[in-house]
């Protein structure tokens, strides 16, 4: 368990992290989300003891990261933003070195190195020089290094930056696997990534914590109501005729398309599930539904809203258009539901 209380880091006049307090419970995957320059790396560097806090306290399983550094650091495996690799070593040599430096018992070193190699799937390249490896493999070697010493907590700073889409998926799967045996904290400025792997999300902006909750809660909290999206073979009048009487509809939007089709958005009232009633209503009128799916509000909206709020609070006159990250995030995540195949 990591307890962070009133953590502050100042560089001269610039405050990188301001009065951050949160707790990380065991056995879950935490996402640390924020725009570039929000203080994610600084916070991670402080948690791992690489840099000192100006104020505040960090304890790892009750061990203070500065007072009791050796014990606290043994609980943590850390992959910094740039993997700390020695280009003139092979992954195997490198991992053996790190295991020794982390004071893994001599008899244990080979087993741990072998385990780290197999978990991160770098057996193919283990005897090549690190400088000849691809970025994806370097990242894996970096993660393997974090696994040595069998730490309870693994901290990964932007583990997927600069990787191609296939590698990103592989690394995400790896992180999910790690989450089964370790507490994992990963940082990212990419929303879809955090959404895809993390149980809990900490959102940070300009060095301040703006939200800290489970992924679902955050989504629900800011999502408002769910929406059903349909394509039906009916005219706009028919759609209104069919759905107007239906209970639980908060809002109905209908856009006629060509070929006698219409695009319909049904916003549900809270605690309502309209998929079946809507299906039955159309069935009664013998109007076929060609497609129906439920649209969950996206974390992206939550994120932009939170960051925006925080920035407006900080600099009221400066209307900063929030988050260039939106460009990098995946398109709206649509959750397909069993919508009665017509």
């Amino acid at each position: 368990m990591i307890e962070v209380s009133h953590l502050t880091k100042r560089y001269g006049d610039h405050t990188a992290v301001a009065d951050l307090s949160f707790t990380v419970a065991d056995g879950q995957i935490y996402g640390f989300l924020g725009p570039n320059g929000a203080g994610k790396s600084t916070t991670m560097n402080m948690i791992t003891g690489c840099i000192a806090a100006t104020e505040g306290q960090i304890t790892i399983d009750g061990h203070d990261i500065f007072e009791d550094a050796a014990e606290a650091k043994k609980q943590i495996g850390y992959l910094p933003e740039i993997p700390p690799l020695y280009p003139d070593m092979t992954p195997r040599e490198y991992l053996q070195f790190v295991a020794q430096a982390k004071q893994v018992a001599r008899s244990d070193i080979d087993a741990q190195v072998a385990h780290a190699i197999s978990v991160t799937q770098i057996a193919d390249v283990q005897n090549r020089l690190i400088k000849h490896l691809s970025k994806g493999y370097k990242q894996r070697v970096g993660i393997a290094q974090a696994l040595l010493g069998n730490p309870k907590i693994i901290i990964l700073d932007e583990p997927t930056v600069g990787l191609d889409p296939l590698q990103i998926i592989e690394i995400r799967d790896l992180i999910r696997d790690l989450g089964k045996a370790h507490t994992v904290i990963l940082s990212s400025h990419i929303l879809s990534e955090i959404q895809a792997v993390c149980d809990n999300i900490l959102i940070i902006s300009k060095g301040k914590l703006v939200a800290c909750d489970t992924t679902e809660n955050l989504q629900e909290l800011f999502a408002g109501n769910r929406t059903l999206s349909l394509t039906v073979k009916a005219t706009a009048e028919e759609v209104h005729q069919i759905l107007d009487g239906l209970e639980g509809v908060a809002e109905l939007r209908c856009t006629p398309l060509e070929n006698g089709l219409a695009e319909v958005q049904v916003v549900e009232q809270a605690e309502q599930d309209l998929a079946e009633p809507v299906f039955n209503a159309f069935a009664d009128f013998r109007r076929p539904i060609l497609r129906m799916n439920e649209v969950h509000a996206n974390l992206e909206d939550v994120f932009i809203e939170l960051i925006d709020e925080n920035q407006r609070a900080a600099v009221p006159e400066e209307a900063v258009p929030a988050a260039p990250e939106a460009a990098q995030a995946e398109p709206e995540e649509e959750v397909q539901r069993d919508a009665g195949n017509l």
Partner: protein
Amino acid sequence: MLAIYKRELSSFYKGMFGYIVAGFMLIFAGIYCSAYNLSAGYPAFEYVLSAITFLYMLIVPILTMRSFAEERRQHTDQLLYSLPISMSKVVWGKYLAMLTVLAVPIVIISFYPLILTRFGTVNLIGAYSGLVGYFLLGAALIALGMFVSSLTENQAVAAGLSFICTLLVFMMSTLTSYLPASAMGSYVTLTIFVLLAGLLTWLITKNSTIGIGVAVILEIALSVCFVLWRSAFIGLAGTILQQLSLFDRLGSFLNGMFDLTGVVYDLSFAAVFVFLTVQSLEKRRWS
């Protein structure tokens, strides 16, 4: 510490720096040995050692420039900072690895006097006390170079700076003879050193207030001494520098004396710079 030591040592011999250092030393020791001992027939191996002291100006920058500057450049210093071992163990591991790289050619050279005994009488005591002194001088200079390397992330800058430092140390005794011997002259010279100490503190702490504070306090102390014991200042700067000159210390070793104060001085010089290296690295956690 052992892990750091082994990694560092193997990296010296995986690259070429370990071989460059050994090669340089063996070539020049060989040239001077054949010139002085074999051709000219001098029975003293110390002359060879005395002739190759200038090598440290090349060897020390080559050996030390990468030590911390390179870690910082390739961002491996973050690994070192996150390890559950103290920074002083990391520094000692690296320092001892560099000493080992230096010791390899010196051990080889230490067979030369024995070989020479086949051709005549050699002053073995002089030769070996000279070798010990030579190694200790190297140990002190390497600590200095390592400290310089911990200040920058550019190894070329580190090499240049440690070359200049080694050069200054090398020429110190020559330079002191040009210093003014008057009391006022000593006062001015020592003031310059006070300012340098202040500058160094500033560089290490990156805090101008502390740097200026150190300089001011030392300068006040110096001025008080100057006013109270003016006569003692005559020739003082020269004497102090003479005493502090690492290369002058080597002289007594080369004269066949196992100079205990010299040993202590070299070792403390090394220890101070190892300590400063640890401080300069720890400092970076806080800035």
